């Protein structure tokens, strides 16, 4: 399960990409829950998250995430794999 710090950072990115400060992400959230989550914004989301956390998603990953929870877990896993501590990612 993704760490609170990771979720918090992800939330900031969602607000930024969808240009909406009111967005509060949750694990079960999908594209249907956010207006404007189209393929253009999905790519923008990927680009923003990869940049923020300095990680790379695989093609399979970006094509198969079912909800925000899976997405967040993958971010955390990649951070751990690269020897970083999710708690310290907050800024």
């Amino acid at each position: 399960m993704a760490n609170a710090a990771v979720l918090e950072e992800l939330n900031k990115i969602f607000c930024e990409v969808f240009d909406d400060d009111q967005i509060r992400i949750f694990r079960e959230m999908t594209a249907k829950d956010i207006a404007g989550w189209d393929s253009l914004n999905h790519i923008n989301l990927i680009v923003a998250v990869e940049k923020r956390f300095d990680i790379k998603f695989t093609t399979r990953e970006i094509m198969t995430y079912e909800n925000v929870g899976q997405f967040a877990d993958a971010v955390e896993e990649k951070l751990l794999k690269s020897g970083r501590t999710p708690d310290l990612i907050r800024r």
Partner: protein
Amino acid sequence: MEKFDYLQLIKEARKNTKNLKNYCEIKIAVLGDSATQQFVQMLKANLYRNKIFAHIYEADFDMIDQEIYTDDSGLYKFMPDYVVLYTSTQKIRDHYYQNTHLDADQIVGECVARICGWWERINSKATVRIIQNLYALPFERPFGNYGGRLKDSLVGVIREINNCIVSKLSDHPNVLLNDVEYLASFHGRKNWYDEKLWIYGKLLCDPKCLLYVVDNITNIILAGLGRLRKCLVLDLDNTLWGGIIGEDGLEHIEVGREGIGEAFFLFQKYLLELKNKGIIVTVCSKNNHEDAIEPFRKHPGMVLKEDDITLFIANWDNKADNIRRIAEQLNIGLDSMVFIDDSPFERNHVRACLPEVAVPEVPEDPADYVSCLNQFNFFETLGFSQEDSQRSGYYRQKFQREEARVQFSNIDDYLQSLKMKAVFSRFDRLHLARIVQLMQRSNQFNLTTYRYNEKECEAFMDNVSEYYPVYVTLKDKYGDSGLISVIILRVSGIKIVINAWLMSCRVLSRGVEQFSMNKVVEYAKSKNCEFIEGIYIPTAKNRMVENFYEQFGFRKTRTDASGQIFWQLAVCDYRPQKNWIEELKEEEWQTQLS
């Protein structure tokens, strides 16, 4: 957030939805065989940063043929100024892998014929400029170095397609190249392609690299709008050579083939290339004049010679004042100048006093000067004519004339002494490229600032019953000034309407306007017209000609809602204007030397 950031641009695109008053509006259609959403958003934002509000028609994904070959498609209904043919290497790759039974020539032939077919079809339907992507070479090379010599390898095929596209451009002056291959090789193909985002979203390249494509097209569009840089202002010490001429002396400055001198030598080679392509090169240095000029005359390692420098200013005044003087003497806007100086103090001073002048940060290492100046692509242009290569010569003649001017007590004696000769003639194919170029470049002496393109000018030329589009060329005893004025007249019943009147500021105050107006009135009489109507459309730059028509006896009749001002003259009231220009026929121009 850094200035040039993918997400930043996307965000700006969302915000900048309103057209601002002093922004120029253009219409662009984007037809792609890869995804265009990201590109379109970023292009819109980047143009907006340059005070251009773009209306963009974005065709559906991979519908280039349908848009171009359907008569009433969205493309043609939209009536764009530009069509961007946003084609991708990956689509050629698909085509290549699906047609392994064909030989390379067939694949290349098909691809090139398809592209030329698009251009011709668009040209038959509309008057637009087409921006054609060149193909980035692929990153993959299954046969290693050996594949590079095979015509039928993917890289061989794409290289040949690019060559064919480039060779076809000479027959299609309205097709402009978006050299994606240069961008990809410059930034590195390894980083250029993003296979993940191609597979997922059919992106042409990595989003970071997309910025370069967007900026490239922005530069083309700016050039098309006449927003060009025309003049370089150069410092000397530690900019054109190493060391300080006033202290180190001629023997000790560094420039030439040896040692660090080669960095300055190569920089000067690049500058000379710009000069030969029509960029005006000037010097502005804090030095004694005789010290500053000495290397240009005597140093064997110098590439630039005295003759290459259109204006040479070496004094102890502040540089902002000197640059302002250069702009005045050349009659060009500050926003068409680029200032290069190794001193951060001078750069900041000029930036603060003259924000319109482009002042790039100059790197510490002179070996990086070329790449620094090169990266800004300041001198993008849509074309090149003989006029360009001779530009600095024209200015030299102009200054000789001004020196001579002092010897005469009155202007008429002086003008008479010049023995000026001019041709006033209907547009012809030979002069078309220069005509279009002058329309792009003239900002100050330009009554309506219409930027007609090649096809539109050709249409005027061929429409003999309605239009009389003319160019004026001028020469005198100091030399040939070339094609310096364009006037487009439309016959409308008993009235002649002056649709466009523009002139190069190089030939101000020589009587060309008076000579031309006499010819316009003569033409009006020959057509039995009773009135001549002049139009003035104010812009930020053409105040100079605000009252142009008044001096010829025109009267202001009305101002319409968009701010256009109409002037009218009764032909019978016209008093022929005095001038000292002898008219030549076009065929006499070459033979009769001044």
